[in-house]
Structure formats: structure tokens, C-alpha cells
């Protein structure tokens, strides 16, 4: 593992330097009272390092909410849309859970049938992680997403007077070499401080999700009345899927032009919480009840994804809990399923 140490007072300079490499995207506050959101950096001073969670995760940069796929016309046939795919970007300030979530998306979009749009964006984007402090909703440690050993170009852990930098790729190494005057070598004391910080963070998690045997328990509880009762609380707003870093469902739609000869096709984020998500040709809905749809979401994260890919489909970022207008909490529902709480 290659490491370096970035001086605290040099961070702004480092960020300014990154802007010369590509479009710099990082967490910033939306308005005075808004949420943190990844957005393009104009002024490095505006970048927030100690944010808890952004409203939308990183997926918006690789699988945009509305993604133009191709144009078609009677005269010219199909033309793949390539806007922005080659843009060089650097996302700075990504937490481990979000890096881990991106690895889940990689399994889906770069696996069996690689998705050219996703692949191109992924190829042209560098990722710089940053350490975080869990709040009462974070449970990434329960699903193995509290630390990552791959999937980043650089990872910064904040220490007393600067940042302990882990270098994860040769592109990451280039970023350090290009501004090497901002860094010094890591000392034994830095390593000791890094280890102390790691342990303290690990002990600070307040929320836990017991995952042992979860896929089997879910199978056993497939017909549980819990689904229907919790489903009645769900507003079906789809918010949980929008904010979830590992939700990747989309629907495909065509927007024709008025000439009757041409148009575009795009895909847009979808959610299994919507009633029409599970409607098939002929009008049959194989998940007509709200409870069945809520079950689908939790099943996909905690049973189907792990069974298929061997890792949790949830990275414990806490977004679905933080942003659900109905106050639904996946960790609570799972405790209910496990019989740990009666509600």
C-alpha cells in the first residue's frame, strides 16, 4: 500500500489542482439550509469534508436520473448518444459506503452485459474517498461497507494536522505526483494515529443490523403479516429508491418529436415501490399490494442480491431511513422479522 500525507492547509490548493485535471465534483451545501449534495466545485472553500450523508448518492454521476440513450429518425436510423461520456471527472469526498455501493453497481452494469454508458462514465471518473464519522443512522459496519480496500484512486483519512492518504491506483498516484509539494512522507506517528482513529470510529457505531442467516429468515417470513402492516404506512413515494446508492432500477421511455419521424429514447430511475413497476403486458400486476412492494425492496437488498452476488445489497448508508417521509426504517423492519421487536 502506497501512502502519503497531505498537509491540512494545502487541501484547498490540492483541490484547485484537481480542477485542472477534470471536472471536480464534491459535497457542498445546497443553499443555506439545504442538504449536502455532490455538485461541481467552483470554489474549493465550499467543499464540505465533515458532511454526514448527501441526499443523492454517487450513482447520479454514473446512472443519471434521466439518461439519454439514443436518437432515432427514419432518415438516419439509430445513433447512440455520447454526450458527456468522455468527460474527465474527479469525485472528491466519497464515503466508504458509497464507494462500496459503486462496486455493487459495477457488478450489475459491468458484469454479464456491460452497459456502455455506465462503463464509459466509470472509466473516465476518478474517485477520492474521505473518512467519515457515523451518525445514529449509519450501519455500514454491519454490512461490511465501513471500510474499503479497493475501488478508489485516493482515500483520505483525517488526522490531527492533515490527511493520511492511501493511494489506490496509478491514476491516484499521478494526482499525488503532480502536486507532490503539497505532500510529505507518512511517519510512524501518522500510522499510529491512523490506527487509533480507525478503532475509535469502529467503536462509535450506534446502529447495528444483525445479518446472520438473514436470507433464510427472509424466506421464512415471506408470508409474514408484517409486510402488509408496514406496507400500509408506505406512501409509495419511491424516495427510498431514489436516495439509495445501490438501487439501480430504471424504466425506458421514448420521447418522439413532432415531425412524426424522429425522437429519442432515454432511461430514468424507477422504483419497485411504484405500483406500475410490476405491471406486465396484458395489465397483470404481480405485486399489487403495497406490502408486497415494500417486501420486494427489502428482499432485493438482503436476500436476492446477497444470494446472487455474495455480498449485501445494502451498504448501510442510512439514507432510506433519513429521508423516508413515512418514517419507515429498514433496520427496524428486519428486527421485527427476526422477532426481536413486536410492533
Amino acid at each position, binding site marked *: 500500500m502506497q501512502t502519503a500525507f497531505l498537509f491540512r492547509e494545502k487541501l484547498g490548493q490540492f483541490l484547485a489542482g484537481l480542477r485542472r485535471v477534470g471536472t471536480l465534483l464534491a459535497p457542498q451545501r*445546497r443553499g443555506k*439550509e*439545504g*442538504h449536502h*449534495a455532490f455538485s461541481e466545485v467552483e470554489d474549493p472553500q465550499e467543499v464540505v469534508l465533515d458532511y454526514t450523508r*448527501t*441526499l*443523492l448518492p454517487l450513482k447520479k454521476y454514473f446512472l443519471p*436520473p434521466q439518461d439519454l440513450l439514443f436518437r432515432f429518425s427514419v432518415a438516419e436510423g439509430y445513433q447512440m448518444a455520447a454526450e458527456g461520456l468522455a468527460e474527465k471527472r474527479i469525485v472528491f469526498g466519497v464515503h466508504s459506503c458509497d464507494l462500496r455501493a459503486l462496486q455493487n453497481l459495477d457488478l450489475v452494469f459491468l458484469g454479464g452485459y456491460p452497459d456502455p454508458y455506465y462503463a464509459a462514465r466509470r472509466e473516465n471518473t476518478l474517485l477520492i474517498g474521505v473518512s467519515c464519522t457515523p451518525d445514529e443512522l449509519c450501519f455500514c459496519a454491519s454490512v461490511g461497507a465501513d471500510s474499503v480496500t479497493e475501488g478508489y484512486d485516493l482515500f483520505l483519512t483525517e488526522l490531527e494536522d492533515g490527511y493520511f492518504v492511501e493511494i489506490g491506483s496509478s491514476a491516484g498516484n499521478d494526482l499525488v505526483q503532480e502536486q507532490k509539494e503539497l505532500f510529505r512522507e507518512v511517519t510512524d506517528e501518522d500510522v499510529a494515529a491512523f490506527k487509533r482513529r480507525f478503532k475509535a470510529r469502529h467503536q462509535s457505531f450506534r446502529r447495528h443490523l444483525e445479518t446472520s442467516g438473514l436470507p433464510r429468515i427472509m424466506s421464512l417470513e415471506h408470508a409474514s403479516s408484517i409486510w402488509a402492516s408496514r406496507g*400500509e*404506512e*408506505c*406512501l*409509495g*413515494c*419511491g*424516495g427510498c429508491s*431514489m*436516495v439509495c446508492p445501490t438501487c439501480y432500477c430504471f424504466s425506458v*421511455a421514448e*420521447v*418522439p*418529436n*413532432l*415531425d*412524426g419521424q424522429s*425522437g429519442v429514447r432515454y432511461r430514468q*430511475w424507477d*422504483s419497485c415501490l*411504484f*405500483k*406500475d*413497476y410490476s405491471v406486465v403486458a396484458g395489465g397483470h400486476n404481480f405485486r399489487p399490494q*403495497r406490502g408486497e412492494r415494500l417486501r420486494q425492496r427489502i428482499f432485493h437488498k438482503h436476500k436476492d442480491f446477497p444470494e446472487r452476488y455474495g455480498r449485501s445489497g445494502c451498504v448501510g448508508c442510512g439514507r432510506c431511513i433519513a*429521508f*423516508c*417521509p*413515512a*418514517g419507515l426504517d429498514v433496520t427496524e423492519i428486519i428486527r421485527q422479522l427476526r422477532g426481536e421487536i413486536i410492533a
Partner: protein
Amino acid sequence: MAKPRIGIYGLTGCAGDELVLLNCEDELLEIVAAVDLKSFVTAQSHPEECELDVAFVGGAVAQPHDREVLLDVRRRAGLLIAIGTCAVWGGVAGAKNDQDRAALKRLVYREAGYPESLPPQPLSAYVQVDFSLPGCPIEKKQLLYSLAALLHGDLPQRIGYPVCTECRIAENVCLLKERGLLCCGPLTQGGCGARCPSHNRPCAGCRGPVEEANVAAEYRILLEKGYGPEEIVRRLGTFARVPHLVELMEKEGKKHAQDIA
């Protein structure tokens, strides 16, 4: 292929939805070139009332004359498309449909009287509607998209998600959850890009209910936030006072009262 014959009609309403079409300045010439516009009295002097391929009808049915026009248009049109929340849900004019019509008429028209008023109803109360474009007024983008889809021989795609979906995508603060405001977003059909919450105003529900809106859950959330039953029903029903949704709220209100008793 012959150009589709189109008619655009307005019943009782503000004609705002027809104006949205006229406001498509950049596309108007293209639209006029693509269709055979037979009747559009808001914008045209010599309408031709004939067989139509598609009729767009805005406004609510609020007087016997509206009903006659609607039935006549329905008979002549292949597809009938309701435009605007009045046509789709009854709109603001129908917000007091639970009250005595005669008393309302006395209150509004005094001695002058206005004997011909009906409780404002959506088009679907009288005829089959093939597609609905809600909104107060409708969204220009959806109108153009729908026209284009029809020109391609398709019905437009319906929007099955609520305002919240777009509000989350816009990364707004949730006014309901985080500010405790009475926001109709979870119950309201999306498509406006969460216009109001994006300007820090709660959604007033102007696009009418989304498919399978969970009114009971929203009603309970609002009661728990301290809103009174009347205020909730009034606000959720401003643009679309749909009797069975009001019933669901009343039922939930009774359940809630039992729960806290």
C-alpha cells in the same frame, strides 16, 4: 398519411390549459403543420365541427351546456384527452362539492341567480376519457410530448410516480418530514419536476392524485404533526376533491381517534 383532425375545447375553467398550447411559441408552427386543426375557439375564428381523430378537452362540467358540448365532442372524436386538473379531477371549482348546491348558489349569485349550475365534475363522470393530462395548468413539456406520441401513433405514457420522486431527484429538503409543512407531494401525480418544493413551497396538489395515493398514511402523518382533520381534507382536496379519497381520510381519522383514546 392524412394529418390527424384535432379539436380543442374548453368547458368551465380558466382556459389556462388551452393557453399552455398557445404559449408553445417555438413549436406552434410545427404543430399546425403536423395536424389538421378543425376547432379551437380560443384561438380561431371559423371552427369546423366535424369528425375528429383527437379531441382535447379542458375545464370541468359545471353547467348543462358543458355536458352537451362534451357529449357532442365525445360522439365525434376517436380519442378524447382531458387536459388540466378541472377536466381530469373537477379542479378547484369542485372543492365544495360536498356542500349544498342551492346554498352555494345563493351565496355566490344572490338574487341574480344562476339556475344552470351543476356540481363541477371531471369529464370522466360523463364520458369515457382515453388519456388524462393533469396540471393546473398542464405542463408544456407533457403536452408537446403527448402530441408527438399521438403523431407517432402511440398513446403517451402515464406518469405513475408522485411529486416526491422528482423532489428527491432535485435533492430538496423535504418540507413534510424536515419542516413539518403540509405538503401534498406524496399523493400528487409527478411531472411538474417538483416545482413548488424546489422553490421551498409545499406542493398544493395541483396535479391531482397519483395512482394509488396512500391518503390514509399521509392523513395520519399530518394528524401526528398537529394538523386538524378539516384543514387536511381541505388542503388535500383543493384541486381534486375525490369522494372515495375523502372517505379514506375520514376512516383513518376515526381509527386514529380510537388509537389515541
